[in-house]
């Protein structure tokens, strides 16, 4: 059963931002990553689902409730962490957490205390004195303390140090195990790859891809890393033959000796690449990596013509697939 069902949801905000005929399904119990660059419409989607802004078109249901008419019923069983969270100045952390629980008519001080301990949050401090990371922690406690059925988190890890991010995801995993659906937006792909079961990519207000994370990573695309004679490699990358044309992307070249310069671009024959590769000419060798999406044996035939010292073929990371989608 789907806990979130979005059909042709549209929100116009004048010219820019907003979402356009967005369709999205999230299964109950899923751990869902919502990926996109800044301004793609992640926050707008979330804010529309939560009823903070009214949709201009389309419809959406959460737990079977309509997001416009039955907003309150949805919010009762949802925990939300905004990307930029602020609290009432002058209040203590413990007061904010209590206020949030009271607004939900929830008795959950035990769980709140446990969460504060795990996140290392000092509840006697005033919220005004908190850093972004610590404000986030307060937000996490407020979102999780009542054990909601659905957790919606908008860029939850920004401002948290790596240790806290780890603890935070542990908390999310436990909530997920206990039956909660987790839906979070991010532009950090590694966290989506590490924790999510399903992911969707959003670009310019539209979902461009939605699938299991394992499927997304298991495309036919392979990442090729090679080290070889610079002139050979340049010639190979500039090759316009049928076997290679349009199948190579995300080229990144490094000077073999220094190994520091790199550049990525869609087309292997782009001008920027040619001019950039000058830095790698000093040595006669060069390192190069790219994504290849085509027949492996014809690639190998082509590669056999080059003078190579090293070659690896690996599965690309989600990050690299992501770059592929947005270029």
């Amino acid at each position: 059963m789907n806990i979130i069902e979005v059909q042709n949801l549209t929100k116009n905000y004048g010219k820019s931002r907003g979402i356009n005929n967005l369709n999205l399904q999230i299964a109950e119990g899923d751990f869902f990553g919502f990926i996109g660059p800044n301004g793609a419409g992640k926050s707008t989607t979330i804010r529309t689902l939560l009823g903070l802004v009214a949709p201009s078109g389309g419809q959406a249901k959460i737990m079977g409730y309509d997001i416009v008419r039955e907003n309150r019923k949805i919010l009762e069983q949802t925990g939300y962490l905004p990307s930029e969270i602020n609290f009432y100045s002058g209040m203590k952390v413990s007061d904010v957490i209590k206020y949030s629980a009271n607004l939900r008519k929830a008795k959950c001080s035990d769980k709140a205390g446990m969460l504060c301990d795990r996140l290392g949050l000092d509840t006697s401090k005033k919220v005004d004195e908190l850093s972004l990371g610590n404000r986030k922690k307060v937000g996490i406690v407020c979102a999780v303390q009542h054990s909601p059925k659905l957790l919606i988190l908008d860029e939850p890890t920004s401002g948290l140090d790596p240790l806290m991010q780890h603890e935070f995801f542990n908390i999310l995993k436990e909530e997920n195990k206990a039956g909660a659906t987790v839906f979070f937006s991010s532009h950090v792909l590694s966290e989506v790859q590490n924790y999510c079961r399903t992911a969707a990519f959003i670009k310019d207000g539209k979902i461009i891809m939605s699938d299991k994370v394992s499927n997304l990573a298991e495309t036919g695309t392979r990442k090729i890393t090679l080290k070889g004679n610079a002139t050979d490699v340049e010639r190979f990358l500039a090759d316009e033959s049928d076997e290679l044309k349009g199948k190579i992307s995300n080229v990144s070249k490094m000077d073999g000796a220094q190994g520091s310069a790199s550049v990525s671009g869609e087309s292997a024959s782009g001008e920027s690449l040619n001019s950039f590769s000058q830095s790698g000419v000093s040595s006669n060798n060069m390192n190069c990596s790219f994504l290849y999406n085509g027949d492996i044996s014809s690639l190998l035939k082509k590669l056999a013509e080059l003078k190579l010292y090293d070659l690896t073929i690996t599965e690309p990371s989600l990050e690299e697939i992501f770059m592929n989608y947005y270029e």
Partner: protein
Amino acid sequence: MNILKHEIKQQKIPLLIWSLSIGALVAMCVLMYPDMKSQMNGVNDMFSSMGNFTEAFGMDELNFGTLIGYYGVEGGNMLGIGGAFFAAIIAISALMKEEKERTAEFLLTHPVSRKRVITEKLIATFCIIVIMNVIVLLCSIGSILAIKEDVFWKELILFHLAYLLMQFEIAGICFGISAFLRKAGVGIGIGVAGLMYLLNIVANISEDAKPLKYITPFGYTESSDIINNVEINVDYLIPGMIIMVAGIVVAYVKYIRKDISA
């Protein structure tokens, strides 16, 4: 009632400062009365012979030589200006401040309907205004007792009730405006209060401008009417209360549908 309690707590310090300031000013006026009284004959003549200025502040129909008359003008001015500004500031920020201070996302993603948020905030605004007026009234009674004068209960209560309703009306208007604002707006509130005060002065000076009394809430706080007739002028009060309700209705209509800015 969580939001209601929270709102009052949030405004605790401004509430105390305003109440005690206005209370102290009113009390000071009353405490100065014994000194004034001894020189009052001259003062009364002077105040009642300043032409338009006299009429503007309603001093032509009041006897400055009595505490009631004196209180009607001096106390009325303090409570009128102070109370109107305070009511305007509290009401204009009631809904607006959630977006201004970026707490709206926190509040409105809790399972509380917008209608409920508006209602509790409205009640909180009125409660805060009532508390302020009670404190001022207590200051006033205390100071009258302190100078060993008789408390003119009926007029005093009616007088303060009229000023309370005046503040409610200003609050109602500003509450309506508050629903439209996102960032700043306290200046708008003060502007509304100041404008209303000026309209009343204009109406007092010029016969042609008399109809303005139906618009400005200061029309029914005219001390001379309250003290001489021992009643609030209902002709001015009713339109005022209609304006107040209109402001509140506008707030509901607007805020229930409002897109909350990030």
